[in-house]
């Protein structure tokens, strides 16, 4: 009876992940990260993802700052930031974000400010979505651990 909570939470996590994969938000690189998580590094995925969030927010702020400068947007710098964003996104399996970065970069190479602005908005939207889903996932994981712990209090 007690174990039901943990199993149901696991099912919820699986459902959420399946959705994210189906939507193309995540790709198999995320699975690779999960495979690297073990007893010696039980928080590996959330650690890496949190670093990614921290870096991404900086990059998004920089991108917005660069584009808000109507005088002359530094497209070269925008490109550099985008390369970074693309790289880290692909490293954690954030496929849709990476794809937006690619389109964004194409616009910046054309010095297309309007296109860049649209891309930035889309990027911020995608980023928010991913961040929310990841938080949901990690919360489910935390709850599942707690539920599993209750079931096996003296597990050794």
């Amino acid at each position, binding site marked *: 009876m007690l174990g039901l909570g943990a199993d149901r939470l*696991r099912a919820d*996590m*699986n*459902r959420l*992940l*399946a959705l994210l*994969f*189906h*939507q*193309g938000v995540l*790709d*198999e*690189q995320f*699975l*690779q*990260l*999960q*495979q*690297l*998580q*073990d*007893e010696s*590094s*039980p928080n*590996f*995925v959330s*650690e*890496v993802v949190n*670093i*990614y969030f921290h*870096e991404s927010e900086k990059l998004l702020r920089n991108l917005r700052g660069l584009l808000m400068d109507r005088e002359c947007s530094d497209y070269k710098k925008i490109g*550099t930031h985008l*390369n*970074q964003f*693309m*790289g*880290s996104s*692909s*490293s*954690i*399996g954030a*496929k*849709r974000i*990476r*794809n*937006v970065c*690619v*389109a964004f970069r*194409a*616009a910046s190479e*054309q010095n*297309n400010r*309007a*296109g860049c602005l*649209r*891309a930035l908005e*889309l990027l911020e939207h*995608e980023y928010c979505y991913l961040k929310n889903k990841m938080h949901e996932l990690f919360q489910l*994981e935390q709850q599942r651990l707690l539920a599993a712990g209750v079931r096996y209090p003296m597990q050794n």
Partner: protein
Amino acid sequence: MATNGVASMHWRSEKIGGFDLSPSVDEQVHVLAVDDSLVDRKVIEHLLKISCCKVTAVDSGIRALQFLGLDEGKGSSVGLDDLKVDLIITDYCMPGMTGYELLKKIKESSTFREIPVVIMSSENVMARIDRCLEEGAQDFIVKPVKLSDVKRLRDYMSAGEFRMKSQQIGNNNSNSNKRKLRESCDLSSSPPSISFSSSPTSPSPSPSPSSLSSPSSPLPGLPPSPPSPPILSYSAPCSPTSLDSPTRRLKMSISE
């Protein structure tokens, strides 16, 4: 729907992807990893540690040279044996000194030129790959780096000899790719994973990475996707021929 492979976030089998992870060398292999991205550094560090390597991760080419004692104004550092580096793996695109420039500096050094250098890049650009290989890079990995890539690196370090020719690596074990083919070959070697509603090689119907998958519509005003070199992980189907030297095969099939 998801299956067991995703459910257990705390499960790691003794064999991941069918590879035996017990070190085949007595001494731990020491890898110097160079990447300006903290996310990537974390991932590569972990990949290497899980493959039983000792890792030193630095964030720039300059720091890598400092670590090796090769920076300006210093001769070869004393006590070099303690630092013995067995492999250097570096990102290509870095501010300041690129991975290519770092590669050149290492190959120019009489002390360190024998150390195999592997380049990583998120861009799958033929010219770039060729340039690095010509400069003496041992291998070129297209990011994101996976466990199978690291396993391959370990293989040719454990062998004791540093093969400098790509053809030889191509004739090696079945998973050796200079271009990482991310498709059913890799997925089949991983534990039961989520089965996607569409083919596992490409959930998005679009082969070009510069177009967006649903629900977002392509941005108006943006130019159509430029004819960039195909990125294998998106466009190449996994065929029987994909397991021999991909570099050679690509050179024949792609006209630059």
